């Protein structure tokens, strides 16, 4: 049964310097509020894991929290570049960033293997590309057909953080809309934190919902609007304009730093910024 605690308390208890941290949410339910609390608590040297780093990891990377990035698509969806990610990779600002780069299919199967307590996953992937030179990819042979397939190692983060629409008082979590890989990311991790829009007395089953039982979650924290500028299907809307504005805010180092100072570091967890 998950504890329902304040976000600062949950982050302090579950996220440490040097951790391998996955904050998932595939273009939906991205846990910005929790990520910002990780920033405010000054965590450093993190190995950030996420299929699509998105604005959230652009911010964490730009603020110097990350030692390494494990990912498969580092763009601002529909807008263009993630400038802080590019600056770190191209110029090592504010710090050099080690990359472990996969394809979506590889990352998704790595989470599935992690959730299944298997050391690796097999897929038809990577063949003929330059990716294996920069990612852990091996070849396994089918013992029945002799066919060769790609193998990728399981992903088992120290801690996974996701956002959902709601939880009940026992910490059972329900999310709906685009489900992404959140359930697998939670099950693959040693520790997990779920931020929610609201706590309800009873979870009313929803079409397309994924339910994560509270007994496999460590902490649930209430963070209304905690996915902004991403969204919580049926509760908040994706702020597409903010994704476009971010291209301007993040382009120059000083503009970025000033914005983060004002809107994240000086904000409180309650503000959900």
């Amino acid at each position, binding site marked *: 049964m998950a504890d329902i605690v304040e976000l600062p308390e949950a982050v302090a208890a579950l996220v440490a310097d040097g951790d391998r941290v996955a904050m998932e949410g595939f273009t939906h339910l991205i846990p910005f509020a929790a990520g910002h609390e990780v920033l405010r608590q000054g965590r450093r040297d993190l190995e950030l894991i996420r299929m699509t780093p998105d604005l959230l990891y652009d911010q964490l990377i730009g603020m110097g929290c990350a030692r390494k990035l494990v990912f498969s698509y580092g763009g601002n969806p*529909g807008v263009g570049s993630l400038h802080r990610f590019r600056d770190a990779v191209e110029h090592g600002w504010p710090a050099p960033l080690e990359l472990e*780069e996969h394809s979506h299919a590889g990352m*998704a199967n790595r989470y599935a293997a992690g959730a299944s307590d298997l050391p690796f996953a097999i897929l038809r992937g990577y063949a003929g*590309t330059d990716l294996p030179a920069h990612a852990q990819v091996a070849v396994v042979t089918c013992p029945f057909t002799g066919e*060769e397939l790609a193998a990728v190692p399981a992903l088992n983060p120290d801690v996974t953080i996701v956002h959902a629409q709601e939880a009940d008082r026992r910490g059972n979590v329900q999310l709906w*809309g685009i489900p*992404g890989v959140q359930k697998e990311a939670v099950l693959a991790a040693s520790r997990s934190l779920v931020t929610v829009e609201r706590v309800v007395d009873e979870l009313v089953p929803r079409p*397309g919902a994924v339910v994560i039982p509270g007994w496999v979650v460590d902490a649930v924290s209430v963070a209304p609007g905690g996915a902004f500028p991403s*969204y919580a299907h049926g509760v908040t809307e994706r702020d597409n304009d903010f994704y476009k504005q971010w291209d301007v805010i993040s382009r120059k180092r000083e503009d970025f730093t000033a914005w983060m100072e004002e809107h994240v570091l000086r904000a409180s967890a309650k503000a959900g910024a």
Partner: protein
Amino acid sequence: MSAAATSGEIQTVVAARALAGAGSCFIGVGRPSTAAILARAVVNPELVLVYESGTIGAKPQRVPLSIGDGELAATADAVVGVIEMFNYWIQPGRIDVAFLGAAQVDRYANLNSTVIGQYDAPRTRLPGAGGAPEIAAGCDRVVVIAPHTPRTFVEQLDFRTTVGHGDGPGARERLGFRGGGPVAVITDLGVLEPDPETRELTLVQIHAGVEPGAVQDATGWRLRIAPELRVTEPPTDTELGALRELVARG
């Protein structure tokens, strides 16, 4: 009588036409998404749109900024997780057509969306592979949509993110791919198709008013040109009207 079509509009309309008769199409964001939504409006109302985010049979009325926009999930026949999308839908080759873009395209329609310059000392770091490598390997056929410039159509990729026709005939078979690979590269100047024998991209169609010489100038290798070059049917008023309405809504 509406204003003349821009080269970008022509490119989008030609891409939409390429989906006539297709059962399902896998798409990312940007022009490919616009073209696929246009195809449902003008040439293929039954077309099943499949997005990486897990929405199967989405019916967007506007062009989504991101593949995660709520409208896609709200209008889909089915919404699945990312793991299922890649393992049950893309890998077995259930999708007919995949639209892909890229920063670099070579003569065999191999694609780079990872880095310009060296990987460890990049001149420009690009977003990366996303789902492209497995989408291009698994889907029945691939249509590449890219702006026609020498920076895009290069002799040598800086990084091979996605395999088109590899190093030529038999390459895909040797790699055990399920899908047939690129059937067309649609640009703002014309259409390139792989030669049936050599698999090398060949200019087979140019948009009205474009000179073959201009296409060669915009291509970073000695471009093969088909003996009978087709000229693109100009967008009809219906196509152009539907496209402009769609973009205006966006």
